[in-house]
């Protein structure tokens, strides 16, 4: 069945196909370049041992809708792997295998995904089955889980020929906190909102907005336009702040000290703006379902303009210099390439997809709230290298500045409505499924909730864009010198905890 972003579906209305039919439907849907899987997961059926419902959500960017395909299976069934046809599904089948011991026959690498605490399969995190190579000439390099800098943990295992990377395998799961289960266990709305802000600390607005939409749509609450505009302003401001910080990081990794220091200090007023708005540099506490504690006032609008007036000339000056310096360009051009073909195959989303010529931006393809009315064109680059992903950030920052300007103008014209009678607690329609897509700075975020007979959460699924994109990094570094790994890594800047949940 076709659904749209932020729609709620009654479970009774979902058609459950046989796995064979489900398989061919998913297979066919994913054969189109404009379609990609936004989530695919299993839900145990509590009354029947070994039985699971599968839900696969395939977004079609051309039709602006999402195909919801479902099936009921038993874990003793012989299920043909869909990943064998569409690599983009690899993490989803691996997750189901790890959590429930569902076997997908023919999956090219049915390895543990994140070593969830409640896994039924997968062994010990210190005993991950890495690919090995038997050779006198090649060597392995292992990095992590703890890295040299102040950053989250993950393990990278390289197979190199001299300095050249032939293969990289990324082993994740170190950050697993059981956050999806906590959404179900913590019953207070405010607890869940707080959890959503802690999924990935660099994408607070992105994930908190996705959760707010889930809660609001399940309650049948129409989010007022003014509130959606304010959330969009916050989302774009988050994009500006992180992109600026990432440009600083990319400069660090090519040993360009001026760029590192200047972008680093330019990030400060961007996150301090969030501080002025809501008291947190990372916008924790800003986005709340059914309400806001921090109305975007005229004064804040003015303050934003003043901050940007100071920021923008310095930002542009620094970026123009950076993208003009041969010593920087020689490190980032043609480094860490992901071809469009590979991007399509592995289901890349967001900024790295757009840097490889693949337009994937849910603000445009599956717009919500304020993005339905505001005019903007996503930026697309074609070279797929570190340069493209760096340049993408520069241009996206400028685009987000313009976008916020338009949003502020729109906000001024929008009448504030009274929302004091909105729900204050979790109040969801029973036996339903809700889906919410949001375009964070990194790319597409997807949250899905399923409620039980009482309207309580039976399942909460979270997908950070990192889930798709980690494989992109692994492919990007092939054939590159191992010394270029840090810039490739920074150019993706993926989330560990967003993946590990």
């Amino acid at each position: 069945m076709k659904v749209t972003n932020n729609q709620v579906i009654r479970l009774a209305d979902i058609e459950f196909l046989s796995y064979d039919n489900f398989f061919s439907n998913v297979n066919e849907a994913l054969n189109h370049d404009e379609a990609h899987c936004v989530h695919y997961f299993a839900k145990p059926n509590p009354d029947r041992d070994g039985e699971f419902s599968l839900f696969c959500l395939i977004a079609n960017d051309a039709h602006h809708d999402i195909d919801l395909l479902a099936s009921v299976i038993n874990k003793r069934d012989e299920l043909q792997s869909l990943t064998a046809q569409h690599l983009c599904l690899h993490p989803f089948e691996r997750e189901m295998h790890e959590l429930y011991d569902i076997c997908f026959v023919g999956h090219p690498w049915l390895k543990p995904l994140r070593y969830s605490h409640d896994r039924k399969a997968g062994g010990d995190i210190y005993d991950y089955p890495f690919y090995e190579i038997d050779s006198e000439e090649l060597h392995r390099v292992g990095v992590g889980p703890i890295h040299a800098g102040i950053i989250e943990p993950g393990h990278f295992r390289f197979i190199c020929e001299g300095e050249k990377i032939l293969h990289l395998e990324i082993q994740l799961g170190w950050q697993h906190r059981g956050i999806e289960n906590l959404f179900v266990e913590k019953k207070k709305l405010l607890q869940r909102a707080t959890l959503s802000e802690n999924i990935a600390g660099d994408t607070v607005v992105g994930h908190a907005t996705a959760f707010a939409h889930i809660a609001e749509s399940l309650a049948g609450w129409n989010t007022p336009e003014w509130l959606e505009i304010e959330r969009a302003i916050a989302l774009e401001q988050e994009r500006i702040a992180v992109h600026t910080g990432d440009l600083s990081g990319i400069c660090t990794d090519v040993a360009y000290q001026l760029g590192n220091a200047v972008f680093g200090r330019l990030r400060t007023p961007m996150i301090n703006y969030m501080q002025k708005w809501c008291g947190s540099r990372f916008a924790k506490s800003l986005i709340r379902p059914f309400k806001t504690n921090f109305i975007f006032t005229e004064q804040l609008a003015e303050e934003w303009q003043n901050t940007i007036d100071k920021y923008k000339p310095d930002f542009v000056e620094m970026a123009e210099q950076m993208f003009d310096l041969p010593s920087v360009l020689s490190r980032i051009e043609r480094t860490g390439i992901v071809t469009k073909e590979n991007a399509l195959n592995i289901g890349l989303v967001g900024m790295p997809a757009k840097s490889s010529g693949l337009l994937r931006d849910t603000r445009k393809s599956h717009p919500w709230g304020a993005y339905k009315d505001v005019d903007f064109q996503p930026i697309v680059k074609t070279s797929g290298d570190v340069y493209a992903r760096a340049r993408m950030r520069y241009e996206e920052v400028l685009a987000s500045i313009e976008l916020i300007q338009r949003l502020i103008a729109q906000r001024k014209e929008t009448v504030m409505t009274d929302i004091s009678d909105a729900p204050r607690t979790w109040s969801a329609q029973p036996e339903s499924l809700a889906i919410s897509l949001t375009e964070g700075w990194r790319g597409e975020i997807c949250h899905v909730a399923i409620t039980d007979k009482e309207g309580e959460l039976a399942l909460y699924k979270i997908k950070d864009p990192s889930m798709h994109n980690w494989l992109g990094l692994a492919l990007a570094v092939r054939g590159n010198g191992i010394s270029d790994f840090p810039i490739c890594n920074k150019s993706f800047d993926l989330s560990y905890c967003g993946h590990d949940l």
Partner: protein
Amino acid sequence: MFESLKIWLHQGKQYIPDVETTEVPGIFRGRPVIKAGVSVDEKALQELCPMNAIDVNPLSIDLGKCSFCGECAFAYPEKISFTKDFKMGHNIRERLIIKEGEDQPIRIDADAVRKEIRRLFGRSLKLRQVSAGGDGSCEMELNATGNVNFDVGRFGIDFVASPRHADGIVLTGPVSENMADSFLDAYDAVPDPKVLILAGTDAISGGLFAGSPAVRRSVLDDIKVDLYLPGNPVHPLTFVNGVLGLLGRMKS
């Protein structure tokens, strides 16, 4: 070259001259004050807090659990307010609990600081950071402590790449089960004597993850913690002042 010099010139002075007295721009929810003599429905107040940070008899807020969301102050503005005081670090866990009627600055208890810490690290402290389930925000704030604004390097405080080069560990995150052993490995690799600093709500109490079977907080049971730094995430100024306090380097 000229372009670079011009850019350099355009930066002006960015560092914060006095990290003890500077003011955080805009709203900042720092050390809270619970006003005595105002009666509220304490049970409702306790119930409202998402972090389980509020206790009754006496009414108190545990900064080691609080996420600084401000909801309690919005609901009961006449009872609870947050000051802009970012100096919230303490070396004794219980002292992070702010009771009704208290409104004094939080200061490290010098008598409880091990003597060798100030003697050996007073002028130079090298730290290794370990994230064990941290969401990335505390990590970014710890990175920011070294940027041109906060510039902790000027106090001889630095983050280093190897635990072998470090005098201690700064831990972020609730200690995920999958990272627990690696954290211990890093801690053991730091030469003695060493310090352990818990940065942020998740590290101090586990935050919302405290009861999750995916975390293993028990690894902290047998380790001496030298400094607790509240925040979600911890603000760079809370970090700098906390560490300076631990080292006995505060002017005030």
